């Protein structure tokens, strides 16, 4: 049964609530970015390695971080949610070429729908990807890369990730 409440809104008062039925009001999202270019060494081909380097995570609400393993961003809300994960990268090799794939790992396991690949050379290229993932408290999200050859060293000149609620209120 739907109950009705009359709420008088004044500028000083902010309402706690949500548009999405079944979704609570808490702030939940993170923006993470690589603060400086960094190399990730893929010792074994076809094996995912967390993207290495120093990341800044700001703003961050409803998430924490972990050194792992696996290292990554930890979902800290107590409500299961579908989250959108978007990422962008600038990638380059110091020598040679290779086909590399970037993916989102959830609790260390590849999220197949998140994978994007490109042929990387010594000329910097851009990559991006997105996915929608159901998340439960303490799930760990890791951004990772795999190479097509043993020993490829991939330089990420830039890397950014946003994680946000997937469902947005319509207006």
């Amino acid at each position, binding site marked *: 049964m*739907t*109950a*009705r*409440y*009359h*709420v*008088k*809104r*004044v*500028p000083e008062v*902010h*309402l*706690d*609530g*949500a*548009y*999405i*039925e*079944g*979704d*609570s*009001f*808490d*702030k*939940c*999202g993170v*923006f993470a*970015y690589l*603060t400086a270019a960094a190399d990730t060494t893929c010792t074994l081909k076809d094996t995912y390695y967390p993207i290495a380097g120093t990341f*800044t995570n*700001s*703003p961050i*609400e409803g998430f924490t971080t972990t050194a792992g393993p696996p290292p990554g961003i930890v979902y800290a809300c107590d409500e299961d949610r579908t989250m959108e994960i*978007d990422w*962008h*990268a*600038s990638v380059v090799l110091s020598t040679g070429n290779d086909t590399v794939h970037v993916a989102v790992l959830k609790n260390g396991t590849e999220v197949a729908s998140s994978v994007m690949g490109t042929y990387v050379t010594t*000329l*910097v*290229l*851009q990559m*991006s990807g997105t996915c929608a993932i159901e998340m439960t408290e303490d799930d760990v999200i890791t951004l990772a890369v795999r190479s097509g050859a043993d020993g490829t060293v991939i330089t990420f*000149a*830039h890397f*950014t990730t*946003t994680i*946000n*609620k997937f469902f*947005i*209120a319509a*207006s």
Partner: protein
Amino acid sequence: MAAKHIVRTKSDHLEGATIRGDSVEKFGGFIYLTAEEDTVCTDADTWYQIQGTVAAPVLEGFSGGAGGVISYDGLETKTFEMDWHCSLVKAGAAVTVEVGIEKNGVLVASSVMSTVATTLQIGMSGTAALELATSDTFAYVVRVLTTAGQTITFAHYNATIRPFFRN
């Protein structure tokens, strides 16, 4: 003072409100370059505003846009997600190009992405989370690394601006 009627649909969930500490005003923008345009990067390693005529078919809580500079008109300091996409090309030898966002004329380092630019058109995209206060401005910028006197042609450019925290 206006009163609003809010329908409570289930325990602890209200329609008509947003996240805690955030008000209910509508904020957001979508802008795009209406036609291909050149941006001349006279000096190497120097940021230049991306040139061209910008349309802003969606702009709520912001103003400007036509000259490529957008101003935040909200009274409340908020974090916004800025997503951008572009297609670019250049004549002559390949160079490394970086695209990013400036806030109040200062580069936002986390917004920068890079690619090689050649005579073959290539796509780029990026994102950033920016905290904006009233009257803060931002613009989209490009630079060429190492090589001076380069002209970058933006075949397409668009960007969205939305509150970062969603409900």
